[in-house]
């Protein structure tokens, strides 16, 4: 794939087109696009000149500093960087969990900054899957209930076949009636993966999904995420600082001091490690 770090000088309103729905099944809608049709087609999430500043005055910290990036559909992207590089902040802004100080973020064609809290919440529920490093599951709900939670919140049902496929593929079919406290760390992360995928969202954000896992459990989760991309066409964006985890991705974006400082396609863990070392040096 070609790098799409386009100049994006035009006004962001040009991209506000079409309905957010119906993007998953490959349906193509053409809105009153003036800039170019390619904008709305192949990217699942996009950031334009996003800056996030914490604090003010002398103590202000630029966690993200004018980042523009696109995450393509059906692609497994890893975001890497040393701690404090702003990778998590960028992800939070792009997933609609945090609001950037300036710049624009999009899920599909939907500009997040223009949505009120309820619509933003609905968008997260319907179009994004989340896997966090820890505390992924609601302790009062069983594994099965945790998986169907996004669907329950909107009062809809889930595709049973798809659910069965996910849980058997993840090896948690026999753990569904258990509470999170009765599950191992790896099992908990796999339940979170199932929840992230069960409604077939356009995009899955995974924030250090293997950060608390041993290597065996990590392999299971990462393999599953890669499979989701390859077999089912999901877009996965994973924030990590582990080169071995990043090697599962098809594309690795490197962040340092809130800026994008490099990129690797078809990475190996050695190549990633090499790049990280250069960043650290």
């Amino acid at each position, binding site marked *: 794939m070609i790098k799409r770090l386009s100049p994006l000088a035009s006004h962001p309103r040009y991209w506000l087109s079409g309905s957010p729905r119906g993007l998953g099944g490959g349906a193509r809608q053409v809105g009153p696009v003036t800039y170019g049709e390619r904008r709305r087609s192949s990217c699942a999430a996009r950031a334009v000149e996003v800056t996030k500043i914490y604090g003010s005055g002398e103590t202000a910290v630029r966690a993200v500093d004018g980042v523009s990036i696109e995450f393509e559909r059906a692609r497994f992207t890893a975001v890497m960087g040393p701690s404090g590089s702003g990778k998590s902040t960028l992800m939070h802004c792009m997933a609609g969990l945090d609001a950037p100080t300036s710049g624009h973020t999009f899920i599909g064609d939907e500009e997040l900054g223009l949505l009120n809290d309820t619509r933003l*919440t609905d968008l997260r*529920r319907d179009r994004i899957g989340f896997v966090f490093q820890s505390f992924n599951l*609601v302790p009062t709900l069983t594994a099965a209930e945790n998986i169907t*939670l996004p669907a329950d919140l909107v009062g809809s049902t889930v595709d049973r076949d798809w659910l069965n496929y996910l849980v058997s593929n993840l090896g948690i079919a026999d753990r569904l009636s258990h509470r999170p406290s009765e599950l191992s760390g790896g099992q908990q992360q796999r339940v979170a993966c199932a929840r992230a995928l069960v409604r077939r969202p356009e995009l899955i954000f995974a*924030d250090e999904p293997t950060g608390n896992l041993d290597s065996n459990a990590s392999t299971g989760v990462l393999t599953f995420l890669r499979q989701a991309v390859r077999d089912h066409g999901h877009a996965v964006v994973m924030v990590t600082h582990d080169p071995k985890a990043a090697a599962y991705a098809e594309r690795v974006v490197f962040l340092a001091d809130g800026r994008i400082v490099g990129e690797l396609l078809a990475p190996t863990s050695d190549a990633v490690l090499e790049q990280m070392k250069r960043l650290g040096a």
Partner: protein
Amino acid sequence: MRKVTIRGLLARKLRLALTALAIVLGVMFVTGTLVLGDTLNRTFDALVGTAYGKISFEIRGTAAFSKASAYSGTDRNPIPAALATAVSRLPGVAYVHGDVSGYAQFVDRQGSAIGSGTGNTLGLSFDPNRQLSSYRLVEGRAPTAPDNVVMDKATATKHHFAIGDRVRVLLPGGARTFTISGIVTFGGDDNLLGITLAGFDQRTAQALFGLRRHYDTIEVLAAPRADSVRLRLAIEKLLPRGVEVVSGRTVINEATSAISNALSFISTTLLIFALISLFIGGFTIFNTFTITIGQRTRELALLRVVGANRRQVFGSVLGEAALTGLLASLIGLGLGVVAALGLKALLKAFGVLLPSAPLVFEARTPAVALAMGVGVTVLSAVLPARRAVRIAPVAALADHTQDGPQSLRRRRVSAGSAVAIAGLGALLAGLTEASILVVGIGALALFVAGGMLVPLVARPLSSALGRPLAALLGAPGRLGRRNSTRNPMRTAQTGAALMIGLALVSMIAVLGNSLATSAKHNVDSAVAADYLVTGSDAFSSSVPAIISRLPGAVATTTVYKGQFEFRGSLSTIAAASVAGLPKTVNLHLTAGRGAPTMAAGQLLVDQNTANTNHLHVGSVVAVKFAQTGEATMRIGGIYAYNPLVGSFITGTGFFLSHFNNPLPNAVLVSTASGTRGFETTLNRALAAYPNLNIQSRAQFEQAQQNSINQLLGLIYVLLALAVLIALIGIVNTLLLSVFERTREIGLLRAVGMRRRQVREMIRSESVIVAVFGAVIGIVVGTGLGAAAASSLRHSSVTTVAIPVPSLIAFLILAAVLGLIAATWPARRAANLDVLRAIATE
């Protein structure tokens, strides 16, 4: 990290404030009660001082009854007027006044009686001499002619009377018209505590109140520098048997102690409700400390790791409690003074004219209030502090657990069951013995057992209660339901405060409804008359004759009531004319005969009195009357309890020979069947007596129920504060839970829970907890109320009636209150920062 610390501190400050609020309200109630009580006491003492302060000696009849209220004076015989003349001639006597008082009630220009209720009207012999009297003529002149009257300034102002106006006055002998000769004040006030005053000249007063050549009391003013001991001896030499002389000081002391006895009943009642509020406040504190100790496990364990010993940890928790209690008590103390002011204003609004005295703040008030506030707080924190002590240092390293230990379960079950069985046993024993004390002990034991066993049913019950909510609200309702069951101990303790409040409310409701229903039933079975004529105070003895002459009246019965001593204890005896009795009063005789024995001057007693005194027909009992002294009476019959008559009844002939000029208490009228318009006839015939209360039997029944319902309303208001404190407890627990579940709520928001859904989730939990407490409270309260009602079945309660609509209303109210309690916690939860959930620690 700093942000987290500041947020944590803020949350703790908030928690502190809410915990304190429960204590603030309780202490406020206690302080308000104490201050009001002291103020009323001081006010009445001042009034007594004004009224009797100048008297050197009072000469009066000796009290006939050993236990009679010294202040009422009903058991003292009048004394001969000649005594006053003799005393006035003694050396050292400056002035003597013979006092006569009795029933006198003004009628306003529209024909309505002014002032209602017992003791709100007063007629007396006006003493124009200012040496003794506290009444001051501010306008006109003292009454000198038989048709002169002086009126208190408050009544004159309110009803627009002026000097020279004609005014009708209701008197024991009937109504008469007088000319207002003067307007008086009592000391500096327009009248004496709202009591209307009609002052006559002495001779007129004697005639009007049936005391020819007699006085009620003689008041003596000693000359300056007179030897009071010698004077008293000189007076005593003049006194016949049955007359005594006491110093002015004694009169003041008797009056003061009688008033403070009456007031202490009010204060004690209010104090009981204040203590209930504090008790429930204690639950809130216990709960808060338990939860926060759980949340601070790591912090406390860390303290242990760095070397704090168990005693220091215990001390730090209790110290925090003591500080919270002290702060809250101080605020409550301040607000209590305001509450007392409010109560005083309320009394004024209800027509009780309190002299403008400043609030009295005794040194005891802050001492008691602070001791109670701090005591309850510290006591409630003892158990949580012990839990804090048990935290092992290693807990600092472990991942903190949110749910408290679930141990002690078996011990709790066995101990709780033991207490419950004991309580139930006491309750049953009390019911068979019909003893309210044993029933009370049983009830208390059941309360305690309930508190111990409630956590066991918390999970299944709140789960069941939450089912409809989960069905109605979907995922948020389901999550709320799960949250209410995740920590049964917490749910139980939070609900327990509301449980106690609602148990008391339901108990009162059941008891009150049973009383009201029984009252109706009792009146139904006791009264055969179609109309009842009663007076708010007393009424003219000419009334019965007027009624009996009315066309359509088949039978009229005049009922008198008076005090006497029955086997040494003060009781009320009724008397009724025998002729019309069977048609007006249903005396269900269980032994002996009714009318003939009454006519013969024998005594009829009710079954309960007969049982407790082991009396049967033909027994002879010792009695004592104020006017005639000791006597014996033969029991002529025994009847089932009759609320109209009371426990003792005899014939009018006997009664009238033992009481001086008694006034009728009620006149019962039966009409011929098919008589129409009798009520109009009755009203027209008695138009001259606007103080009379003319009621049909149905109206009389209704009035009985109304007075019970009025009392119920008052108790509900007093319990409302306790319920409010229980609600604060729910708010507090929810806020703490929200704080504790910050990450979880953030996660829910991240994966797509809307703010509205978060609010619904918190509200569901709140409603479940509130309804949980309410259900148990209502069930327990209904049981206790039914038990208490049936323990009274030998006296006034004949039917145990459970007010189902009221109980359902309480349940709905509890749900609504739960919804309200959730408002703030729900808003906080909905506005939580999503990022905080996923930000790593």
